[in-house]
């Protein structure tokens, strides 16, 4: 296999860069707001005005403030010597007079005007502000390359120190040293369960087997959460690098990425990334000229939330119905095709190369005692600024909701945030001092989950929020186990009954009992966590439930059993007729 020189590729790439760059976000959010047209317009105008020698237009990934898309960032290498009209307060002056300016809602007209700016004309476009609290309160670890690197060009990733981590482990780390480094970093799984990553890797590494698999769970299905999609669309190579490092540490030569079928762009960019990496010999056989072989294949989901659960995901990779199976046995010993299998989330793999490059101490220096590093959140719902947010774990909720999110829209007040999607819970505004880390949120009856964070204001009714999530779980239940299949239906009915004002206190008791039972007895994570939104709203917003109840009704019908023997038949027929009518 050809031996490649990362340094050489990087310096070539940097040398070819033009002094001025226009970065167009082409992640799905901005694309659906019309980013493609903007990008084409930029190219056309740069050509038309003959600026191709000095201005370069590039497709990059997410720049976080999705509600203002399409976003465009203009980079000027030498601000002292540029005709571009610059108002200081909107730029971020960096080293060597370099400056960056953000633009919001860039469509064809404003694109034209921005390019004309390079000829000294006044720019007519909506200015963003990198100095605003939305950006100033955030950090960049996972999202380091998002908005800077071109996701469809491996050279661009390599120029940003890409694949250095993989090179380093292949040449300077023993298998154990890699696992040791990841363990020391304190990284915990970012998919929701928060299991220590190093320990998981160690378990799979210990299980001796001819074949082992490394799987990336990119079946992000929580409604209102798109961290993984954004990362895959913005920086796909980061995930491939993390998986390859895992493959080396575990002695695996085959990786799979299971991507949600609803993410065609992520699938496309991953496919491109894998092809490019294969071509350079960064994936495939004899990587970097070492004996290490690792190939990555894509598997596309087809629309089933339950496939985010690891046993269901593996069933789906093997071409089956995505129904879960009981654990133990855990995938670490008995996974894909019965072989030891490592499953980690997209964001978990996204952290790996940075930990190797910068060392575990660097990573462990961020976050809290038990939750290290940073976390990407999707802040959506009823706040002013919605989009992608990266902060160190342990950041208080109020900082995310009020400082970064800008608080409620005018005239309203924030009532709660919902974290963890359909598996999570609601945290009332009085508790916004709580630091966002795995353990603090669990104590409040919610979970950090994969990073969805939805702000709810006084216009949202909490019982309806609970009903909404229960409907989601009911629709997504695979139907294998009875508590989840039939229990979610009954919980949903009870919530609807409460909302309709026809439930009494007995119904509320029944609701609670059923929630606890479904949580305790369901087969997989979907069913076990489905009652969480209901239970947590019952805990913090019980008065909203109670205000909807009517006084007890002693004349209500009870459902007599249908299993009596033939002696009671007459009574039964009457009953069944009654049931049909209801």
């Amino acid at each position: 296999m050809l031996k490649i020189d990362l340094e050489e590729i990087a310096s070539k790439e940097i040398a070819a860069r033009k002094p001025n760059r226009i970065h167009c976000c082409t992640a799905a959010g901005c694309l659906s707001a019309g980013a493609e047209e903007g990008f084409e317009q930029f190219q056309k105008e740069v050509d038309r005005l003959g600026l191709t020698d000095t201005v370069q237009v590039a497709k990059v990934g997410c720049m976080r403030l999705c509600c203002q898309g399409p976003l465009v960032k203009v980079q000027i290498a030498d601000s002292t010597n540029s005709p571009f009209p610059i108002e200081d307060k909107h730029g971020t002056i960096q080293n060597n007079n370099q400056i960056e300016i953000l633009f919001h809602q860039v469509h064809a007209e404003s694109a034209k005007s921005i390019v004309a700016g390079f000829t000294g004309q006044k720019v007519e476009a909506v200015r963003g502000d990198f100095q605003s609290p939305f950006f100033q309160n955030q950090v960049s670890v996972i999202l380091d390359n998002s908005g800077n690197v071109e996701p469809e060009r491996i050279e661009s990733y390599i120029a940003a120190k890409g694949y250095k981590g993989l090179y380093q482990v292949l040449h300077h780390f023993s298998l154990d040293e890699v696992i040791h480094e990841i363990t020391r970093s304190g990284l915990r799984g970012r998919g929701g369960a928060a299991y220590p990553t190093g320990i998981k890797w160690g378990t799979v590494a210990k299980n001796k087997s001819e074949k082992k698999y490394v799987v990336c769970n990119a079946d992000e299905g929580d409604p209102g959460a798109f961290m993984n999609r954004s990362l895959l669309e913005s920086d796909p190579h980061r995930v491939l690098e993390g998986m390859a490092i895992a493959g080396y540490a575990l002695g695996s030569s085959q990786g799979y990425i299971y991507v949600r079928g609803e993410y065609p762009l992520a699938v496309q960019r991953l496919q491109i990334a894998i092809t490019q990496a294969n071509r350079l010999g960064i994936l495939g056989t004899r990587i970097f000229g070492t004996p290490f072989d690792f190939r990555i294949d894509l598997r596309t989901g087809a629309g089933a939330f339950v496939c985010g659960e690891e046993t269901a995901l593996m069933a789906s990779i093997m071409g089956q119905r995505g129904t879960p199976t009981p654990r133990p046995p855990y995938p670490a010993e008995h996974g894909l095709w019965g072989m030891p299998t490592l499953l980690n989330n997209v964001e978990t793999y996204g952290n790996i190369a940075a930990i190797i490059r910068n060392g575990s101490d660097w990573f462990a220096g961020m976050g809290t005692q038990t939750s290290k590093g940073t976390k990407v959140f999707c802040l959506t719902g009823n706040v002013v600024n919605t989009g992608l947010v990266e902060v160190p774990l342990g950041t208080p909720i109020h900082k995310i909701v009020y400082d970064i999110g800008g608080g409620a829209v005018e005239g309203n007040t924030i009532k709660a945030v919902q974290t963890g999607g359909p598996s999570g819970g609601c945290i009332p505004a009085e508790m916004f001092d709580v630091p966002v880390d795995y353990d603090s949120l669990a104590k409040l009856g919610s979970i950090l989950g994969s990073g969805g964070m939805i702000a709810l204001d006084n216009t949202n009714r909490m019982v309806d929020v609970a009903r909404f999530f229960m409907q989601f779980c009911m629709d997504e239940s695979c139907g294998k186990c009875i508590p989840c299949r039939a229990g979610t239906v009954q919980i949903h009915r009870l919530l609807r009954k409460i909302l309709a004002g026809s439930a009494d206190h007995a119904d509320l008791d029944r609701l609670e009992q059923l929630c606890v039972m479904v949580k305790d007895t369901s087969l997989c994570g979907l069913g076990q966590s489905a009652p969480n939104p209901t239970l947590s709203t019952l805990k913090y917003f019980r008065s909203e439930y109670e205000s909807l109840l009517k006084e007890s009704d002693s004349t209500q019908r009870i459902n007599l059993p249908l299993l009596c023997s033939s002696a009671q038949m007459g009574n039964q027929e009457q009953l069944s007729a009654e049931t049909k009518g209801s």
Partner: protein
Amino acid sequence: MESKETKLHQEVSSLAILESEIRKLQYRQDALIEVLHIAQNLFSYLSKETLRYVAKQLKLPYSKVQGVATFYHLFRLQPPAEHTCIVCTGTACYVKGAYRLLETVESWSGLQEGHISEDSKISLRSVRCLEPCGIAPVVVIDGKVRGHETPEKLLQELKGWFVNVKDRS
């Protein structure tokens, strides 16, 4: 209008493509979902004949292929409608009033969510999270994503589809 012959021709060549794709996947039974994705792209939906063909090629039981095809929501077992309106009802869109959009279209068109109109021209669906949540509420009209949608804007857009539908207002 396409002649019957061209249509038949197309189907024959699609089948040839499907066959070669299955061969590329080495007739692996665990590639069933990949094969169904390919088949749906070629034929726009999964007919009984297609499922039967796939089962035979991969040497899988019919019921298993049917079971997998019906488990995943992205697989269509009916021909798609000419026009589709998909309202996202994910959390962010829900919080921002997605159901108002859905109700507006439903009451205006007389078409229920999840249904296809009688002439199989229009389909109205909801979907859980398309995930450009930053621009919620989101609607997809014939494949084009539209953000910050309002009932008024949406009706304006859909009016052309319902020329033959009686004005229900």
